[in-house]
């Protein structure tokens, strides 16, 4: 890679290395909790916190961690932060905690976080690792909110965010397509999103060639 800039590293996480759509990591939470925008924001907030914590710790300790046991070390570092966010959310945001269910402890096995530790934080200094965490975290947030918004809008006919009704479709919301809130809707939404991303990429490639 050529010159690294903070903005470049940040944007890379959102567009080129987008964790869900480009790298196809962390699918389970991306589909399971996106029945509403609110849950999507809560989930990506928790993931961002863990990612930030683990990236900082891993890159700060990168000279001390022996290469052979790096994976167990990553898991323990990640686990520590997951336990912290798990207890904090249980104490301060019980409804959100209940909605996200077992997906908070499951952040431990989220491939995004361990993937960033392995691919980035172990090789780069703390400053860039923080930027990388924010970039990837934002990328995750963008996709989750997009899926959440599509599913909530089509599935309930309105988007409700922290008690406020943001958008609602007048006639449609009387008989919304509940299908979108069900698991099948999640698979379809992400399938369509990925196909669109692929379509865009292929079109760009063809233009360049």
């Amino acid at each position, binding site marked *: 890679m050529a010159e690294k800039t903070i903005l470049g590293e940040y944007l890379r996480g959102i567009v080129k290395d987008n964790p869900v759509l480009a790298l196809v990591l962390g699918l389970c939470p991306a589909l399971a909790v996106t029945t509403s925008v609110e849950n999507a924001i809560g989930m990506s907030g928790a993931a961002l916190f863990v990612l930030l914590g683990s990236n900082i710790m891993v890159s700060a300790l990168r000279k001390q961690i022996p290469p052979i046991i790096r994976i167990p070390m990553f898991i323990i570092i990640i686990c520590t932060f997951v336990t912290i966010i798990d207890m904090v959310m249980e104490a301060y945001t019980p409804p959100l905690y209940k909605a996200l269910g077992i997906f908070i402890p499951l952040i431990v096995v989220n491939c995004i976080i361990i993937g960033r530790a392995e691919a980035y934080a172990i090789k780069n200094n703390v400053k860039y690792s923080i930027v990388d965490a924010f970039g990837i975290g934002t990328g995750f947030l963008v996709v989750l909110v997009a899926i959440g918004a599509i599913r909530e809008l089509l599935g309930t006919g309105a988007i409700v965010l922290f008690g406020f009704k943001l958008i609602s479709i007048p006639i449609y919301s009387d008989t919304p397509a509940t299908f979108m809130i069900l*698991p099948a809707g999640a698979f379809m939404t992400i399938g369509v999103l990925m196909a669109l991303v692929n379509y865009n990429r292929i079109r760009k490639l063809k233009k360049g060639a």
Partner: protein
Amino acid sequence: MEDVSLFAIAINGIFVKNFLLVQFLGLCSFLGVSKETKSAAGMSAAVMFVMIMASIAAFLIYTFLLKPFGLTFLTTISFIIIIASLVQLVEFIIRKFSPPLYRSLGIFLPLITTNCAILGVVILNVRLEYGFIESVFYGFTAGVGYTMVMLIMSSIREKCSVLRIPEAVQGIPHAFFITTLLSMAFVNFFGVIPT
């Protein structure tokens, strides 16, 4: 939770709350491995085996170690360590006693440590307050559900490999569309077990 019949747990684990299609657990490996029936079967067998073993080990550690000493905040970290060491152990045992099985399952075993389905089973066992028999049985039925969907999916994908699919939809988007249809079928099981 009291009075959960084993039959209800079985129907729940296999159909109503199918791990892959309804609870979205273990999707990463699902999409990666379901291209061929052979590797799908291998992965499913490994997952089922580790699920049962992990349910047993996690139950024992949780009831006799974490709970009596008030260490429940260590649940996640101890479960992940249990699973990781169990996977290692299983790998050693299989390699020693059955080299042919090791050759077919071997490559899937390391993948299992970070499979959310396994950690999902043990955490759900704790959250639903299942007893020993229920935990192990839930682990088993969740594994059966996983295997079933894995086999259906891989055979559909194998058949689809001869189709002409638009370039943009090839690969993972296409797998998601198949999953959508499968998931729609499973959604019909909602409400079979009154909660």
